[in-house]
């Protein structure tokens, strides 16, 4: 309950403190991260190619928005569908192999989509990206204004968060965690592990697709990077730094990542170097991310406050 209040407060207050476009980007990235975390945090599958679904959805929906003037609902629906279908295709190839191969394959297939986008300049614009993506009106409401679009995206984020919450609290959520904890046992219990992993993959892809469409409409352009491995790495980093062990981790991670990348990249073109360094530092020292650091901090405070001689166990 407290988490929801905090998030609602953040949604309402954020545009007051931060440029509307950045604020919007934060919620978009949070949706992206939620999708990845179902795979990474809950199922234990490190997918290094989520940009495949993000970018594919952005390109397809963006193309239809630009040349066919489709409405918002159709664009969103297509984004989710493209994300899910591309994830089904990629996932089908990947889940059949064990952990190491899975990771390599998600990356390699991401590269395939990337190079296809890079070369198919007539459709995607190649290196230059696909500019000119409009924001259609919604039921007569004009969402062109930054604040109006922010509200739309924030609303969609809240819906996405609620959906993900339902999923992780459902039997499927538990099954996926069981697969992460002990795959052979989960199988012995009667769960078709490959199929479950594929389901998680498709759901993750759907979320990524939604994020992709919203991204295209935010900046009015689908850049080539949106389908590239750096983007895939970005969302992994954001999820990691937020804390992959909880539902809200990716949300926090999105804040941290977007804030970092926007503020640093404005100053220095070599921002990926800092990202790499941050990656290394987080991996070496802050693996649980912000969520765990927060928990450890409170445990430390509780331990300090406890009377001498009392044993206080740190929560895990």
């Amino acid at each position, binding site marked *: 309950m407290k988490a929801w209040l905090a998030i609602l407060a953040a949604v309402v207050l954020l545009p007051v403190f931060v440029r509307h476009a950045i604020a919007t980007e934060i919620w978009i990235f949070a949706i992206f991260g939620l999708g990845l975390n179902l795979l990474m945090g809950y199922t234990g599958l490190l997918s290094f190619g989520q940009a495949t679904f993000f970018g594919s959805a952005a390109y397809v929906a963006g193309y239809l928005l630009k040349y066919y003037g489709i409405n918002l609902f159709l664009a969103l629906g297509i984004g989710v569908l493209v994300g899910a279908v591309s994830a089904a295709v990629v996932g089908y190839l990947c889940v059949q192999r064990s952990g190491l191969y899975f990771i390599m394959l998600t990356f390699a297939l991401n590269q395939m989509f990337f190079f296809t986008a890079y070369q198919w300049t007539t459709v995607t614009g190649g290196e230059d990206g696909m500019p000119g993506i409009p924001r259609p009106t919604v039921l007569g409401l004009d969402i062109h204004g930054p604040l109006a679009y922010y509200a739309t995206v924030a609303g969609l984020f809240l819906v996405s968060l609620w959906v993900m919450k339902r999923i992780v609290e*459902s039997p499927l959520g*538990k099954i996926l*965690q*069981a697969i992460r904890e002990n795959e052979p046992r989960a199988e*012995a*219990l009667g769960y078709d592990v490959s199929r479950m992993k594929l389901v998680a993959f498709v*759901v993750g892809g759907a979320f990524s697709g939604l994020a992709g469409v919203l991204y295209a409409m935010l900046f009015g352009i689908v850049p080539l990077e949106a389908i590239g491995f750096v983007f895939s790495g970005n969302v992994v980093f954001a999820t990691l730094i937020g804390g992959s062990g909880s539902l809200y981790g990716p949300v926090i991670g999105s804040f941290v990542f977007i804030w970092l990348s926007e503020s640093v990249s404005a100053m220095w073109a070599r921002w990926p170097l800092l990202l790499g360094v941050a990656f290394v530092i987080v991996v070496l020292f802050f693996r649980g991310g912000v969520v765990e650091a927060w928990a450890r901090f409170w445990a430390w405070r509780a331990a300090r406050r406890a009377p001498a001689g009392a044993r206080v166990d740190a929560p895990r």
Partner: protein
Amino acid sequence: MPLVRTERLTKAFGALTAVNEVTLEIEEGSLHAVIGPNGAGKTTFFNLLTGQHAPTSGRIIFDGRDIAGTPPHRIAHLGIARSFQRTSIFPVLSILDNVWLAAFARQESWRGLAWRRADRYPELTRRALDVLGEVGLGEKAGLPAREISHGEQRQLELAIALAAAPRLLLLDEPAAGLSPDETQRMVTLVRRLKGRYTVVLIEHKIDVVMSMSDRISVMHFGSLIAEGTPDEIRRNAEVRRAYLGGIAAP
């Protein structure tokens, strides 16, 4: 009526024949023990029954159908459940969830799989709590599974198998690593299962096996060297030879 029957079941890993032409029958409702020295192939035999390995040759007839080579995730749905020799649980999940998942898998329909809150399945939660109560872990249902002792984890291991409401229960050394007290508790638990389930038990502790089995099969180097009632096995010279000083003389 035998619930499960193997016909010349064989599993070879390259040059090593782990299970060699094992033919036996398990009567429904009985408690049938499989014993033998380390490396006799007992766990591999179980792995063949539960689909972790596909047999090199031979048949496994369960309830009239040959199930050899069925993948593990379908075995559970046939009504076969198993506990593992090396404790195989879900450490981070709660004890209740460990058992709940076993029960959920066996539901006829998985309605609400991705939508309904997992704690809104009252029948399943009740069944899980019942099973936990039966093995003596009812009080600890909310704890993460990794926070209980080894002995309690062995109880959980058994509970997970029971929660699937199986017809055939395969227990692989349920007393492994247990103290004498804990072993006694486990023996009592397993004895209570007689009649309600068909149980196949792999166990090292001979006195445990002798006291509660209806029939005993003895494996050695992958082959079945003897089978019969506990008395018959106790008197079998070849069995005594295989087990260096394992079985007490009558």
